[in-house]
């Protein structure tokens, strides 16, 4: 597949496969098209050539790097997670939906914080809430878009340990990052994007961090 904005081709001729239970690391410097790839996955950009196919009924979850939430952001952690419930015309959450929210809050260790305003949560707690929101629809593919970039090391590991738990329960993970240490530590496969090209394979084949990059 090829991806482009107008005449500006970002990715030319990319082909890769994701299988259930993979922890795919998408790695590369800024500007090689990681974000472009995410936009294409979420149907916000049409590939110029080729296509992205999912197994029928695949649901996607997305955890962004960061959201612009002020300290007076009014929603509680629980209500924030519940935003991603199915967009039906019925305004009130059904009992089953409420149970799904409670379940995912417990799974992501947020039950204790559920009724606190999200604006007052710490960076790591916010990321966990973003993760919970993405997971509340029980996606088969979870896309983490530089989700650890603004976190301290220890908090990064906590978050990714949590993600790993969900992967072992059958969720496929696609982790976009430029952190080579995290890639080696959590990935099972990699997709290394470079200006004008790419390589892919099992994580053991991921080249060591190039000079000048961390």
């Amino acid at each position, binding site marked *: 597949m090829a991806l482009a904005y107008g005449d500006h081709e970002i990715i030319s001729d990319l082909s890769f496969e994701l299988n259930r239970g993979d922890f795919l690391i998408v790695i590369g410097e800024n500007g090689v098209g990681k974000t472009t790839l995410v936009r294409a996955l*979420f*149907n*916000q950009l049409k590939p110029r050539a080729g296509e992205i196919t999912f197994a029928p009924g695949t649901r*996607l979850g*997305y955890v*962004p790097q960061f*959201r*612009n939430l002020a*300290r*007076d952001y*009014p*929603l*509680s952690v629980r*209500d*924030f997670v519940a*935003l*991603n*419930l*199915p*967009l*039906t*015309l019925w*305004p009130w959450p059904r009992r089953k939906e409420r149970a799904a929210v409670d379940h995912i809050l417990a799974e992501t260790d947020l039950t204790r914080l559920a*009724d*606190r*305003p999200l604006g*007052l949560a710490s960076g790591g707690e916010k990321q966990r809430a*973003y993760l919970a*929101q*993405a997971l509340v629809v029980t996606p088969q593919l979870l896309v983490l878009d530089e989700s650890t970039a603004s976190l301290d090391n220890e908090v990064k590991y906590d978050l990714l340990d949590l993600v790993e738990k969900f992967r072992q329960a059958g969720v496929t993970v696609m982790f976009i990052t430029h952190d080579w240490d995290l890639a080696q530590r959590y990935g099972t496969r990699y997709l290394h994007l470079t200006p004008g090209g790419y390589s892919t394979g099992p994580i053991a084949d991921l080249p060591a961090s190039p000079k000048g990059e961390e």
Partner: protein
Amino acid sequence: MFALSFMRYAFWASTFIAVVAGAVGVFVVARNLSFLTHTLSEIGFAGAAFAVFMGWSALSGMLLFTMASSVMVGQMSTEESRREAVISATSALFIGLGILFLSLSSQTASSATSILFGSVVGISRGEVFQLGGLSCVVVAALGLLYRRLKFSSFDPVGARVNGVGERGVAVIFLLIVALSVSVAAQIVGSLLIFILLTLPAASAKAFTTGVAKMMGLAILFALAGAWTGLYLGYLTNWPVSFFIAVIEVAIYLTALAYHHSQVD
């Protein structure tokens, strides 16, 4: 005071207005559209002036102008950086038009003040039913759109990737705001619409988490202002809009103080 029929009508009208403005206001505040409601009320002023000029009811002129322009603004304002300039230009044009229509029509002075500052005396039984009907439309639209509106207002990042269809939601929401502005202007006047459309919602934000609770609280604050305002207006013969404004500002200041005491 309810012995007077116009007070009864004003009471009902202000109840509808408070419910609509409180509920819609929560999303107006979340989407940072306070400035836009101000513009829509100026456009509404032009619409009402046009209606006076044509010999229609002020409400129909307001609806016509605000609905048409909210669709236009929705198309133009997708780029955030340009939004304020576009809105200022629109405001300027419509205030100018409003002044023109008023000066062209014969009954300038009194109708101008009642459009700009609102009036409780002028509300008829038929208008109460009109307001009630429009309020039901707004509430029903909010209900059907609730989940999408909530997602795109309180988490635009998540809404975008989860296929909420933001553009559609934005345009429909602007239409809802246009309707609410036209409804609210009947009592508080087009200059003071944002009192009811933004202050109760902004105050509610400080006291609670959760969208439904904020809506409930915002409606309560709007009702408190509207009813007390009507009553004080009846007692003193001072303008109702004045009392509503003072009460809503007082609630807002209390909310700010409360919020600071909680955070620090």
